[in-house]
């Protein structure tokens, strides 16, 4: 079971280029969850099939503002439009939130290197929770398997494909580190990505122009681009969504880990931390002195990846 799960989790970009022949059958099997929220002009194509209501909604969506400039009323309106568009296209109801950051919250994450055994439950949970593109096999989280004596994912194997745990190997999970001094947000020419007051670095998918400068600027490879139209089987779509989080993306935009903003702003754990069978993942509020993350930072030997770049990540590694 573990191995099949891993196969699904493998990030193989070449696969999607090579598997073009099987795409047709793939598309038949799955109903395509095309991006309901994308500007109609951008998706293009099926104009004659669209109802006038759908056209009108897409038109309004195309001319809406950057999320950060919207009033609360405008945020509610766009969320309502996106829910309606999804209903029109997929005949399913979704609940999209635009919940704001909570006061006195700054999210932080710690990863226990000595506990992780490389099961990849976190990867699978993340893919499901965040509606990640199944066709391109997008993953926000990657686990690197390393030999003893080498504490650097760049020398590890990010594509391991065998039964775990393995003697004398250890694992490091990498994902977006939600840097305080984030090079990606600095690079974006349209302010389509920014750091929220609770420390989550988010992307306004509808504002992103797809230049990929943020991807080049990230020293941790924390960002993913939608090279084609993302696809998720209809029955697998997570319908509890957030505007800045796991709502359906569209082709030509960046996306990334959002610390599961749709969950964590409601006080829940991110999907990866919830799914971890070994308890290697610690997530919490850095401003709460009684939180587990604060305990880890105070009592464990912690370090951060590529500290010399001065990015100030909110993601620590520690050893028991």
């Amino acid at each position, binding site marked *: 079971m573990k191995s099949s799960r891993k196969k699904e989790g493998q990030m193989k*970009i*070449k696969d*999607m*280029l090579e598997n073009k022949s099987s795409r047709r059958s793939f598309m038949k099997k799955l109903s395509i969850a095309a991006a309901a929220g994308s*500007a109609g*002009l*951008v998706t*293009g*194509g099926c104009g004659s099939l669209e109802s006038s209501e759908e056209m009108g909604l897409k038109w309004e969506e*195309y001319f809406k503002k*950057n999320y950060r*400039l919207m009033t609360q009323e405008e945020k509610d309106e766009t969320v309502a439009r996106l829910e309606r568009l999804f209903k029109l296209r997929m005949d399913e109801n979704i609940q999209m939130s635009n919940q704001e950051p909570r006061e006195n919250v700054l999210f932080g994450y710690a990863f226990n290197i000595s506990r992780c055994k490389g099961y990849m439950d976190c990867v699978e949970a993340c893919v499901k929770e965040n509606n990640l593109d199944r066709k*391109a096999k997008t993953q926000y989280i*990657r686990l*690197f398997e390393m030999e003893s004596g080498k504490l*650097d*994912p*760049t*020398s*590890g194997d*990010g594509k391991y494909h065998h039964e775990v745990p393995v003697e004398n190997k250890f694992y490091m999970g*990498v994902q977006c580190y939600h840097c305080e001094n984030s*090079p990606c947000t*600095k*690079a*974006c*020419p*349209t*302010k*389509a990505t920014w750091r929220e007051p609770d420390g989550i670095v988010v992307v306004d998918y509808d*504002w*992103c*122009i*797809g*230049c*990929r*400068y943020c*991807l*080049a*600027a*990230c*020293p*941790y*490879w924390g*960002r*993913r*681009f*939608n*090279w*084609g*139209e993302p696809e998720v089987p209809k029955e697998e779509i997570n319908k509890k969504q957030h505007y800045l989080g796991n709502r359906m993306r569209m*082709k*030509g*935009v*960046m996306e990334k880990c959002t610390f599961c903003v749709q969950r964590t702003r409601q006080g829940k754990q991110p999907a990866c931390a919830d799914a971890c069978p070994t308890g290697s993942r610690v997530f919490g509020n850095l401003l709460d002195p009684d939180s587990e993350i604060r305990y880890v930072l105070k009592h464990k030997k912690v370090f951060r990846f590529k500290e010399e*770049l001065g990015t100030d990540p909110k993601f620590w590694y520690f050893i028991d």
Partner: protein
Amino acid sequence: MITSPKKGIPAFISDCTRWALSGGIGFKVYLVVLLAVIGVGAFSYVKQFQEGLIITGMSDIVSWGLYISNFTFFVGVAAAAVMLIVPAYILKDKDLHEVVIIGECVAVGALIMCLMFITMDMGGPLKVWHMIPGIGLFNWPSSILTWDVLVLNGYLALNSLVPLYILYCNYHNREPVGWKYKPFVFLSIFWAVSIHMTTAFLYQGLPARPFWNNPLLGPRFLASAFAAGPAVIMMVLIVIKQKTRYPVDINIFFKLKRIIVVSAIINLLMLFSEIFKEFYTFTHHSLSAQYLFFGLEGHDSLVPWIWTAIGLNIFGTLLFSFDPTKCNPRYLMVAAISLFTGIWIEKGFGLIIPGFIPSPMGEVVDYTPTSNEILITLGVLATGVLVVTLLIKPALAILIRYKESNA
């Protein structure tokens, strides 16, 4: 070609259009071929527009490819017009003043290519209005990309409007008024340096990519551009000398050659300095250079390209330095083509792709552009050539007429 003098903007436009399109059967064939290449490129772009950038060879690891490589190189070509503008307008060099307009036309063509390449590379080209200040949200001054948008469009405006004004005056048989355009000429000189440095800073400012994060990148951009750009202009001048009756003095070739030799030697010196730094003490940060020059973990798709580029670079530089033919156009053409091609590969592919390899997580993959991507690129290049042709033809017609009526 010489018509009775007419006046006003409509006459100027109609005459220019006529001059741009008139020509023999050879010229007509040339235009049709360019239009065909543009058509194929446009068709491929429609496919990319519908399906997304997935039809290119790019991936999350090598996330910029052929488009951005060419963009980077042609910024250099655009800036090279300044190497004619400085001697022509500032040092009052009579010979180069005759051909400065050609340099400006080449700059306009190169800039149009740059802007097209950027657009082709965007995931959401219809959302480009998000970047327009006022209606969009312009992340200035934080994002270097916004600086690049400003300097490229500004340089395009300067390089279009100054020659347009001069030609418009000449068309009406008037001497252009110095104070009306000279300030903009001075501005364009600084601006040319700025489009280079800003484009270099796009890459240079990213600590995530050690291959680019190198203070020599900007200056080296300038040096290579001041060699490759005048080489393009020289190629265009040779064609003009052979195909039109516009007089191109042999002295112009001597002077251009001198500019090219100095820049090419400085470029090679800086290349040597970079290679020394990467390989004398091999660090983790030298892996990209290792990939580029020798291959890494069995991936070596760029190795033949970069050595070809360096060979052409040295060969072209030597041809220009030791010219036994004393500016024979055929000899110069070979020299210009080899230097231009060498710098094209090196500043395009050789600079952009290795910046992504290995990825920040240490992964090594090869990047191979797809046929769609290549066709789109060829379409943009053909558009640039077409623009340059259609600008130079009426410009020369006006200058010839102006000279003859004032002879």
